[in-house]
């Protein structure tokens, strides 16, 4: 019998579309019957969405960039 544990342990393959058809059907049937697992899948997907957005967040401030520029200028001798 497909359990919540099976969904959790297969969630990565499910998201990456790597499940075989039999497991996929069992997982989707279970999720349809189990609101806890539905909430798990929804929050899992949402987590991937929001953490993926961090890629666009600038880490380097203009001050950090400027300090690097000054450092490089002082240390690099032109060839």
């Amino acid at each position, binding site marked *: 019998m497909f*359990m*919540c*544990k*099976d969904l*959790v*342990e297969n*969630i*990565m393959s499910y998201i990456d579309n790597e499940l075989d058809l039999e497991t996929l059907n069992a997982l989707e049937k279970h999720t349809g019957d*189990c*609101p*806890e*697992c539905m*909430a*798990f899948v*929804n*929050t*899992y*997907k*949402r*987590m*991937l*969405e*929001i*953490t*993926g*957005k*961090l*890629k666009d*967040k*600038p*880490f*380097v401030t203009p001050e*950090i*960039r400027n*300090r*690097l520029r000054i*450092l*490089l200028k002082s*240390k*690099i001798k*032109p*060839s």
Partner: protein
Amino acid sequence: MEIGFINKLINAIVSDSKQISAVSDEELVRMYAQSGDEGAFDEIVGRYADKIYGFALRITRNPSDAEEVFQEIFLTLSRKLETFRGESKFSSWLYRVTVNASYMYLRSQKKHENNISLDNYAPYDEHGTLMGRIMYKDWSSRTDIIIFNKEAVIIIEKAINELPEFCRTVFHLRDIEGLSNEEVSDILEISVPAVKSRLHRARLFLRDKLSDYFHEWRR
């Protein structure tokens, strides 16, 4: 004719014939390593400053430590860019340099992280069910989180920084930088199954942490 002059001539032709932003990383490295083309080096800095600082910050979890590592890496690159041998993608090589430089820095500062183990981390109970564990903290439809405001970002960053280091690096490269399992395996010099295993536990831990934090956060 002097070789340096020929290289400069070639670089001038390359620069003229296409925008520097369209030049590949590997070509930029060659331009800088062979003739000290500062425009090529500036372009490398522009492309990778955020990635290197962001990754160093993810490992060290401290902005001033990350900046030390960041500066050291670019200083070393400016002097020894020719040590890149082209055996892997330049970006992969640079991420590997960042990992090594970050660990070396932390060791030199005697900063050791007490890593918790996530080997057996799972949200289900001993019967394999999630009963009563997920729904009451379901934040998946909260618009204040989805719009990704400043407070939400602080919470997300806090949760990621609670991951143990060996999971945090994998999570950063795979889910934030969007690299493939194979690229992460190459950078961290661990197997692809190890990448997948660490990523799986990292995501389970992070989903739980975010649920706790967002549950407590104002609505």
